């Protein structure tokens, strides 16, 4: 029988020819290793009239220590999609990097882009492949969002460590600060927001998460560090510029100070 080539999937090609390059290759991590590697935390995503917004804070923690104040956990994966990753930072960043190559590779081999559902399914299978590490505490849970060019609407997908894939409506958040962020999103999200309003809601939800969760970093005015925020609409993914985020974060802090609430 004629054997067909590895097809348009970069991951399948690596699996076949270069398994050493796949993320999370040493499957036997020593017990207690989970506390010794940096973990990334809160990501929020929400929809607005033209597309979606995704934002992530800048902190990575290692037990009770801040491992990084400037880590970036939201990535543009191709022109119409972004992924935000919470969990063991090293494995998470590797998976995001592989996912980005996977999408680009498919596009180059096939000459067309994967559908948004196709992209979400590929990411789900990558998370499933990481299950052995996840059971040892090195779990990686992404939040995936993008603009569906066929349905002409923004869509948000969440995952669990077994590769389960769930489509979310309106908004969603993941990571240790997500209960607080979700509470904020429930009150702040409105059905007819424009991009600027949606970005502001995302920044404020992260502020609330950082307020109550030590593993989530708030806006850092001393070091001028602001969340990483992307919008995705019919024109593609766009990273929101730092001065805009600095303005929004400063406004939020000023408004909270002025309201005089202590809790």
């Amino acid at each position, binding site marked *: 029988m004629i054997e067909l*080539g*590895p097809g348009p999937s*970069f991951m399948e*090609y*690596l699996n076949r020819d*270069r398994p050493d*390059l796949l993320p999370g290759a040493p499957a036997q991590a020593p017990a207690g290793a989970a506390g010794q590697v940096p973990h990334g935390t809160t990501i929020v995503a929400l929809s607005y009239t033209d597309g979606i917004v995704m934002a992530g804070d800048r902190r990575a923690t290692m037990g009770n220590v801040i491992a990084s104040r400037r880590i970036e956990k939201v990535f543009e994966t191709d*022109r119409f999609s972004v992924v935000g990753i919470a969990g063991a930072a090293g494995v998470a960043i590797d998976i995001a*990097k*592989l996912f980005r*190559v996977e999408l*680009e*590779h498919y596009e*180059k*081999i096939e*000459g067309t882009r994967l559908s948004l559902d196709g992209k979400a399914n590929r990411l789900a299978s990558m998370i499933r492949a990481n299950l052995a590490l996840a059971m040892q505490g090195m779990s990686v849970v992404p939040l995936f969002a993008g603009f569906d060019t066929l349905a002409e609407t923004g869509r948000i997908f969440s995952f669990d460590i077994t590769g389960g894939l769930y489509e979310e409506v309106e908004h969603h958040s993941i990571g240790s600060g997500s209960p607080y962020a979700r509470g904020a999103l429930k009150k702040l999200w409105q059905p007819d927001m424009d991009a600027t309003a949606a970005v502001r809601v995302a920044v404020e939800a992260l502020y609330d998460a950082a307020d109550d969760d030590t593993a989530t970093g708030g806006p850092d005015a001393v070091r001028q560090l602001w969340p990483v925020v992307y919008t995705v609409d019919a024109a*593609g993914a766009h990273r929101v510029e730092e001065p805009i985020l600095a303005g929004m974060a400063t406004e939020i802090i000023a408004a909270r100070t002025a309201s005089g609430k202590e809790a």
Partner: protein
Amino acid sequence: MSAQYYVSPEQLMKDRADFARKGIARGRAVIVASCADGIALIAENPSGSLHKIGEIYDRIAFAAVGKYNEFESLRQAGVRYADTRGYSYSRHDVTGRGLASVYAQSLGAVFTAEAKPFEVELAVLELGATPADDTLFSLNFDGSIAEQPGYIIMGGDTPVLREAWNGYWADKDLAAAGTDEVIRAAALVLPGVGVSPEDARLLEVAVLERVTASGSHRHFRRLDTPTIARFLGAGK
């Protein structure tokens, strides 16, 4: 058992080369030229889906003439090579020279060892900061490789096309020209194509843009038929 006839190595290589050359000359031509806006890749190709031109990596493109199944498998192998290198080292470590030399080795190995040589001619192009920094490699069916300054013409009746091309650029500077002018010149030179907007569907055109509109790391852009028609129409 049938006796094997003796064939001298010279004759064997000549027969293989003649065989490959015949296959390549039957196909339609591809023109690749480095100009002010980037590197333009123009192929005479009425099919909208069976491409002769492809993206390999951020600043690297591929063009081929000859048998589709053979150069398509080479293109896919090139994409895999580039993506694997970029993924395991860094995006900066993927170079056109590296890719061209891998192609040269596999073409050379197939030419001498396999039952039949590849009937293809390839171009591997790497975009630089200025036209002088662009590198254009042409690769032959036997694995021979050459770096060409300015432009590459492959397939069809190459000597005639080259003469027409040089005639067009005799009093113009290719390195200072825009993509639109290069596309019009190629349409003029390619035998089956005219320079009216209706001929746009006979052309496959892509550009390695020196400056990308979206600031993306991927410089390769395929032009759609309406855009090509607009460029062809603008010359009047």
